[in-house]
């Protein structure tokens, strides 16, 4: 590689990194710097006196803490439900011969083309009637339904990759089909399940519109709490509160994506390549 080409390459890499990360870094700066520094023109980026008071205030805010807890519960429950129900369905589609499979998969995937808001309007009415608004159970049910088609499609692909001889050996040893699923196939396909779980957890944690319409105090999620703080900004002008809340809402998915990157990229790239 020539020197000029190498310089251009590294320059491009720096631009990509700045573009990807600078917005988040600036948010951290607003969260940590005293207001006076940010108000001065030109801006005073003296990083020697960072102020953790904003984060302390966030952690002291019971409503925000509860919202983070709700999101944690809802995302965990949705992930588990989709993995379990999705594994059963995925195994059925991958390994059992019967008719109607493509009809099921076609109908399930077709629902993914339909804008979520179409679904939300009747759900809003039904939940009002049934008293299901502002319940974590209601949201878990909704999110599971929304994410199941994708989970099944992914899991079916991962199960198909497991050598059929493994399953046959287990069945010769007297294992039932469902037993083989839980004892052989799921353990062998564990990296695929991990990838699916990461995707499910992040999608659920990040969802906003359904949570905004369907939750109040008892099941308010982290994104809804962040939107409330964002809404107060015009009156309170409390940018530290906004930045610290946003950092805390962003942190869990980013940590998961970074720490479990290996599995994530596998699921995103491979599922797309396999088609």
């Amino acid at each position, binding site marked *: 590689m020539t020197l000029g080409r190498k310089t251009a*390459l*590294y320059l491009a*890499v720096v631009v990509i990194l700045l573009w*990807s990360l*600078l*917005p*988040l870094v*600036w948010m951290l700066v*607003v969260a940590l710097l005293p207001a006076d520094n940010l108000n001065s*023109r*030109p801006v005073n980026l003296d990083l020697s006196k960072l102020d953790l008071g904003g984060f302390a205030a966030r952690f002291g805010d019971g409503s925000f803490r509860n919202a983070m807890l709700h999101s944690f519960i809802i995302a965990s429950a949705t992930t588990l439900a989709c993995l379990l*129900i*999705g594994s*059963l*369905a995925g195994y*059925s589609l991958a390994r059992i011969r*019967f008719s109607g*499979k493509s009809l*099921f998969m076609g109908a*399930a*995937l077709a*629902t*993914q*083309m339909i*804008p979520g*808001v*179409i*679904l*939300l*309007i*009747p*759900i*809003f009415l039904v939940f009002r*009637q049934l008293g299901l608004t502002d319940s974590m159970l209601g949201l878990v049910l*909704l999110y*599971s*339904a*929304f994410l199941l*088609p*994708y989970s*099944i499609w992914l899991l079916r692909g991962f199960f198909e990759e497991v050598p059929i001889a493994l399953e046959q050996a287990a069945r010769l040893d007297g294992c039932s089909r*469902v037993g083989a699923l839980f004892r052989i196939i799921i353990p062998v396909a564990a990296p695929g399940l991990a990838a699916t779980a990461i995707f499910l957890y992040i999608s659920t944690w*990040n969802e*906003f*519109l359904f949570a905004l319409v369907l939750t109040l105090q008892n099941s308010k999620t982290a*994104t809804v709490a962040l*939107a409330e703080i*964002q809404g107060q900004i015009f009156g309170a002008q409390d940018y530290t509160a906004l*930045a610290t*809340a946003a950092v805390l809402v*962003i942190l869990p998915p*980013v940590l998961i*994506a*970074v720490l479990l990157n290996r599995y994530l*990229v596998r699921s*995103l*790239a*491979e*599922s797309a390549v396999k*088609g």
Partner: protein
Amino acid sequence: MSSPPIARRLQRAFDADTRLGLALLAPAALIIGFVLLVPIATALFMAFNSINLQRSPNWTFNGLNNFALIGRDDLALAAIPRSIYFASLTVVLVIVASVGVAIVLNEPFRGRRLVRLLALIPWSVAPLAAGSTWYLLFYYSYGGINAVLYALGIIPEYISWLTDATLAINAAVIGQVWLSIPLASLLILARLQGIPGMLYKAAMVDGATAFQRFRYITLPGLRTTLLIVILITTIISLQTFDLIFALTRGGPALGTVVLNYAIYQRAFVDLRIGYAASLALILFGIVLIASLAVLILTRQRRQAQAYVAVTE
């Protein structure tokens, strides 16, 4: 005595495998049926009804009246072209930037693994939180963009990016592009890695320039992937809501209300449920037409449907 053919066929249809297969599929089918398919079908009916929430929901069939009302709803009439503008600009910027990012991240350099990982981070950020992130960048007094441009002497005065509707909707596009590039470039990169290096070597032996190699090897190799990325980005950006909710709340003066935002406003703020359902059908129609256009271009329907499933 042998059983009659019909009975035998029925028996075969409900053999052990079929029973087990259906039983394992049943929980998923029930949830998808009751929580997705039934509400979707209900929404179709709602679009042709006026629904009064004052008493217990009171439906009155009113034919196409809801759709006629759209013609007198300035919020919706402005939101439709705005959504199309928003999605078109987003798609163009995402495609151009993502091809560039993927090509760079496909080159060998020190720390490539780490850079690929860091470049994926915006994908995991909640669209709502991305709205807050870009709010803190574009906002007048605390905005990072004003702070940097002013400190560098590029602008003499702070610019109020979010109080001008034209600037604000384009600010939202930038936020959406930031959110969309990681997945798009990841998919393109995965495809790039599948293009045999031999092709490039052969082309170089034949004296092809860098541009010719891009034009005649890279682009044709990426064709399907690019159309799929276009499809994904179009569907998602036509339905933007969270980002704009955080960034502008539809303002200034409702100048950044996109179609999904208008539906939210009419349904859950104004409680005009039936009317909102008809608007939602319009959104679905736009998404469908845009998707079909891309699908016809790819002529690879099965594959593309699968990709749609990946992204939602």
